[in-house]
């Protein structure tokens, strides 16, 4: 099968790779680039564990074909420690005990990052709506929302 050529920036690094035309974005990220922080939970866009940021928007990387990565600027959980807001979110998730099994955590952090980048003044309700595409089976969500709210608060203070 013909491979497709893709050039894009991921986590600040330029890539020029070949991919299978049937590859989804999550396949490229996890298998071709070896970045396994992005998780595959349902493969049908229902759980949000595979959330990454594509040109500033949160997307389910299992619901995006690799071709959409062409020319794009992409962020995954692996970049979050290097970004101020990403780092604040990570610390806040730790501090608020928003993590249990941790499988949904990267997806939640990516959704929260995209949301707060667009709307730094997000209210608690807006935060809840912003992560409504991410399922968590362990925490019952409240501590996750607390963590995002807390990170937003710190971000505004700085």
């Amino acid at each position, binding site marked *: 099968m013909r491979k497709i050529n893709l050039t894009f920036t991921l986590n600040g690094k330029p890539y020029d790779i070949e991919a299978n035309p049937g590859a989804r974005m999550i396949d490229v990220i*996890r298998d071709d680039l*070896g*970045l*396994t*922080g*992005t*998780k*595959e*939970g*349902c*493969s*049908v866009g*229902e*759980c949000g*564990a595979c959330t990454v940021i594509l040109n500033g928007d949160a997307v389910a990387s299992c619901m995006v074909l690799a071709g959409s990565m062409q020319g794009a600027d992409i962020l*995954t*959980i*692996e970049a*979050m*420690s290097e970004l101020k807001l990403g780092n604040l*979110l*990570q*610390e806040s*998730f*730790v*501090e608020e*005990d928003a*993590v*249990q*099994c*941790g*499988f*949904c*955590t*990267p997806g939640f*952090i990516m959704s929260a990052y995209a949301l707060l980048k667009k709307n730094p003044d997000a209210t*608690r309700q807006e935060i*809840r*709506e912003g*992560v*409504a595409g*991410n*399922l*968590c*089976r*362990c*925490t*019952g*969500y*409240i*501590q*996750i*929302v607390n963590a995002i709210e807390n990170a937003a608060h710190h971000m505004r203070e700085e």
Partner: protein
Amino acid sequence: MKTYTIGKSIGRIDAHAKVTGRAEFGADIRLPDLLYLKGVYSQYAHAKLLAVHTQQAENMPGVVCVVTGQDIPGERMIGELFIDQYPLAYDKVRYLGDVIAVVAADTQEQADAAAKLVTADYEPLPVLGSPRVAMESEYLINEEYPGNICGEVHMRKGDVEKGFSESDVVVKTNFRSAYIEHAYLEPESVTVIPSPMRPELTILGSMQAPYNARISLHRTLNVPMSQIILRPSTVGGSFGGKIETAEAMSIRAGLIALKTGRPAQYTLTREESMRESYKRHPIEFEMEIGATKDGTLKSMRIYSISDGGAYTNMSPPVAYKTATLGAGPYRLDNVDVTATAVLTNNNHTGSMRGFGVPQALFALENTLDQLAEKLDMSPTEFKRKNLLKNNDTSPAGHVLDFHEVSVLSLLEKAAAELDFDRKFTQYKQENKDPNRRIRRGVGIAVSMRGVSIGADGNGHDVSRILIEVMQDASVHANLGLVELGQGLRTCQMQMVAEGMGVNVDRVTMGATDTSRSPVTGACIASRGTLLGGGATLDACKRVHAILVEGLQKTYGEDIGPVVFENDRVLFDDHDLSFVEVVKNCYGANLTPMAVGTYSVPITNWDPKKGFGEPFYTYSYSCQAAEVEVDLDVGSVDVIKMVGCHDMGRAINPVLVHGQIYGGLAMAQGMALSEDVGHDSKTGALKNLNFSGYLLPTVLDVPDTNVPILEEHPDPRSAFGGRSIGEPSTEPGAAAITCAVNMALGKPGMIHELPYDLDRVFAAAQELWGEDDVEIS
């Protein structure tokens, strides 16, 4: 008792790795030369398996081998307690999740493509699609079980007939729960790595019970247990679910690793996970409960039938808990509970957080609300009169004189937080107005949770830990109880620090590794804190004895009692740092390392009579819920839930809060939206992914849920702690249903789970008529 580490909300030890995406889950493992696997599922829920044809698949590009049940060199069946499960079906298939072959290839795509070419010859047998059909069928799914009944447990006390005759009010009800999926966000994944030196296999991945798996791997693959090493990866949730399925997968992958000498990774898609994995038991209940006019409970009869599915799995012990805990924490002289488990050709059912009790409480509490209404009492009034207190005898016959029986206090706290009594009166009044289409209701439910396996496993309930103090006085603890996300290892670390009398910073919890952590049984059954704590205390005593021996060599035999506390070691008039004492020990050529062992004391339980002490100790809980029901749509909004729990001592209060928040949400899903659903004609499941299997989202779970802890350190537990994982989800579905039924205006009206739009709307129609609505 003064404590230094336990009772503190220190951060969980794995949080940083998890928020950065660095924590390695099963499917994240990358190895050179890795093979990828794909299972082939049975086409029939019940059939003789005559032949499996693999040749075509074997000829596909990239395929390295295809294995079937015939390739298993040792015993061909597995099971934790009852050995009747095929890791790979070979002569018969019993449900649609049975795997008949596994393909191994260089890439996942190659394996997937080849798996489609595996065919089989079947001789179909009738599908026994429900317990009632199975009980009457001439076909036996397992020859050992007449009537397909794989378990029957009784709990009996007093004389129920006499009790009913002395009752002024008796209610009879029926309830039914649904198939619930654990729905851990991480689908199962195991990787088996063969050693080039020996038949040795190292198994990584998502598994809850590595020691159980070791036994099965040993039996099926003929590899000595000393050459089977299990190292669970970060586990993405389990809730009781990653035991038998992960074990069967390990065997299939192990077979391929042994055959090819290459590491093999086996990851399920969500659909495969739903298709193959076991579920929470759907249970039908027939209840009969009587009380006298003054509201005193007199008599209770419960008959339950659970759908065990294709394999015995945990059905008998689940039935044990349904039977021994299903009567709740009530004072009751006459009780007769029978819990029956039946094999069918549906998905097998096994351990899931709550283990047969959430279903029972759903039936019990909604029946009690009916009884209370007939007695013109509120649910809280009724409960206040009947809940167990100190020194009372439990329904099973256990005299509760050994710890604080706090359930009444929990009820008061939960009721106060929800403002239950006022709202109950107000909403009851409001709901009399037929024009009110959006109605509110409150519900409250209680439980007593038997801690650990119970008398069902009398004498077999053991845990072990290895603690080693290194030369630099750092402490390494190796415990076989797996971190599943609940925070177990953080709590265990705190108990190790407390037990050793050292600063918690000294303690490292080694990753669970069966070659280093001594056999400890599974992280199941509300046993982590009691069992892990008991073993830790024992290990600490033994290590202390070695350190004392070193001190005696230096300071003389008669140094008297030595106290290890807060990183200091005190004896005579000495006050040494822990570091000095460790240095001294190594200087004396001693080894400060020990295995600690704890076994739960045998309790006095008569299984024939169904009477006595079914558990060593209990956790108490009360959960309350407020809901809003839209009669015109059938929708239910949960407004608030309260989870009030006495887990003895909260080793780490913040982590306990996390368990409660999560448990409440899980209960909400069980009540309102979660149902795997199945076709009883074919045994096929209806919802194989999260598009149809509906977990509560962040917008469904109330943002106002409140956890409340009440602590009474349990004298029967080493560090006073019991359990919270299971209790936190136990009474919630019952409480929500009570609240919905109150909003509908009739206790017990909704008696089947889950109640999504149609079911609630139909109930509202029945109660409030289709055409009686005044349009105003």
